[in-house]
């Protein structure tokens, strides 16, 4: 029976997942694949986001989504992988200067990547923004003409905003398109509601997360208690950003919640997990307690003299 394949042949025939660098420090080692070698399961990091996957980055405003999208674009371009950036919210000329600044921050000369980045300005073109068929026809044309490997859309929310009903249809069309053209893609989607901060279900209802391959959620957290102050090392009232990979059907991935930092040069860095912070805090407390205890002892002995 030819239709039935054995598990072992399925395992050998399955396309090996490969990673491709995201340009975001601390992110690439969070994706991995498992392999059975000599009867033991070994975990092999992808050193990047899974190639040919469609990754959705979701979060409220100012969480760093666009910065990640830009870092990915620059990194990929620097590797010679032509990347098209569909800008839906920011006019092309602002995006260009932002990409240049970001490139300098990443120690990449913007001139060296000039010919590898292509910008589709949907902000400035109603027919592209309001009509996904036109956008995809244009992308198909650009992909073929310029040998594009990656597509970034910032943001898909802007493509279905006025017509919530068809958010699902629109995202599905985009997804199928990206698959057909073997693109690695970053889709940014905005979360508008303040409720349930840390979930991938954004403004478009359940449209995006269930369709794409990988979801990354970013949330803002306001420091509200002394405990938070200690844990995050920031004063009450300030904001920290939290990051989590919220599912990826292409490969294994880290599932912890981590700190996302934006450096003073404007780059996103993925940092420690919250449990790492907690145990560091505990250790600190224990040390302090130890110190206090010995202090008391010293004092006590002193008094006894």
């Amino acid at each position, binding site marked *: 029976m030819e239709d039935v394949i054995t598990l072992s042949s399925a395992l050998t025939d399955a396309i090996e997942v490969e990673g491709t660098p995201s340009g975001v420090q601390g992110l690439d080692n969070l994706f991995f694949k498992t392999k059975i070698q000599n009867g033991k399961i070994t975990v092999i990091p992808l050193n990047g986001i899974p190639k040919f996957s469609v990754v959705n980055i979701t979060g409220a405003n100012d969480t760093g989504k666009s910065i990640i999208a830009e870092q990915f674009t620059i990194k990929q371009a620097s590797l010679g992988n032509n990347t098209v950036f569909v800008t839906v919210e920011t006019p092309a000329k602002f995006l*260009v200067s932002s990409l240049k600044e970001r490139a300098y921050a990443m120690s990449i000369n913007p001139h060296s990547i000039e010919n590898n980045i292509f910008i589709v300005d949907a902000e400035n073109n109603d027919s592209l923004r309001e009509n996904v068929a036109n956008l995809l026809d244009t992308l198909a044309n650009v992909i073929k003409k310029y040998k594009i490997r990656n597509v970034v859309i910032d943001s898909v929310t802007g493509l279905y905003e006025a017509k919530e009903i068809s958010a699902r249809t629109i995202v599905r069309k985009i997804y199928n398109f990206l698959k057909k053209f073997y693109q690695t893609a970053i889709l940014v989607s905005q979360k508008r509601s303040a409720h349930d901060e840390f979930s991938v279900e954004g403004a478009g209802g359940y449209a995006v997360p269930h369709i794409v391959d990988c979801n990354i959620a970013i949330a803002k957290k306001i420091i509200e208690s002394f405990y938070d102050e200690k844990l995050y090392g920031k004063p009450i009232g300030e904001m920290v950003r939290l990051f989590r990979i919220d599912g990826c059907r292409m490969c294994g991935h880290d599932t912890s919640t981590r700190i996302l930092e934006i450096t003073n040069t404007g780059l996103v860095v993925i940092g420690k997990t919250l449990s790492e912070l907690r145990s560091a805090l505990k250790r600190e407390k224990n040390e302090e307690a130890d110190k206090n205890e010995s202090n008391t002892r010293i004092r006590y002995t002193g008094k006894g003299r």
Partner: protein
Amino acid sequence: MKVIQESDIQERDVDFLALRVFLKVIEILGGPAKIIEYRNLTWLPSLMVSSYAVVLHEEMGYGYEEIAKFLGTTKNTIKAMLSASVELVKEKLMEALEEGEGDKVEENKLKTHVAGALAKLAYKEIKEGREELGLLSHFVSHLSDVYQIYWPPIVLKKIKGLDFPVTKEKIYEKLKELTIEGFKFDEIYRDFPDTIHSPSSLLKLIAEKIKQKK
């Protein structure tokens, strides 16, 4: 960084495509004269709506509600149009047209799902390259003046009435007397595929053969 320019931006012309579908529907119904003869001119508005609905749905991915809003009709109408079975209507249509002759026709109202099925059928025909022949001929003869290539309109005129897809023998029957750019049709058609899907693919085949021969 290259900002993609106007020339690389593709825009689908929904309006024009809807018009092409509409014309194809009329062709399927037997042409304008036939429609007048059957006193079925009242069908035209709902055929226009269904043609547009199919295009919005297929090309733009619009949902029922969006289409209804766009075309100023109800969601249920659109739903009936777009979920109509083409096969069912293909059989019934002939009946409807045949029994339509004579006086009865006056009340011969077009059912919504029939309009939808016709538009769906026409859309499919166009997507497969079987454009309404009148429209195609019009463009071809216009372009043949521009490019000073005169055989395509002649070919189209001669194959009028053929029902595509068609066997190459049938094509040969119609075109055997032709000489195209100095080559007899006999020499041109020999390695054509057995079935030819549309008038435009026929024109393409001929053009390619001539190019080879030259």
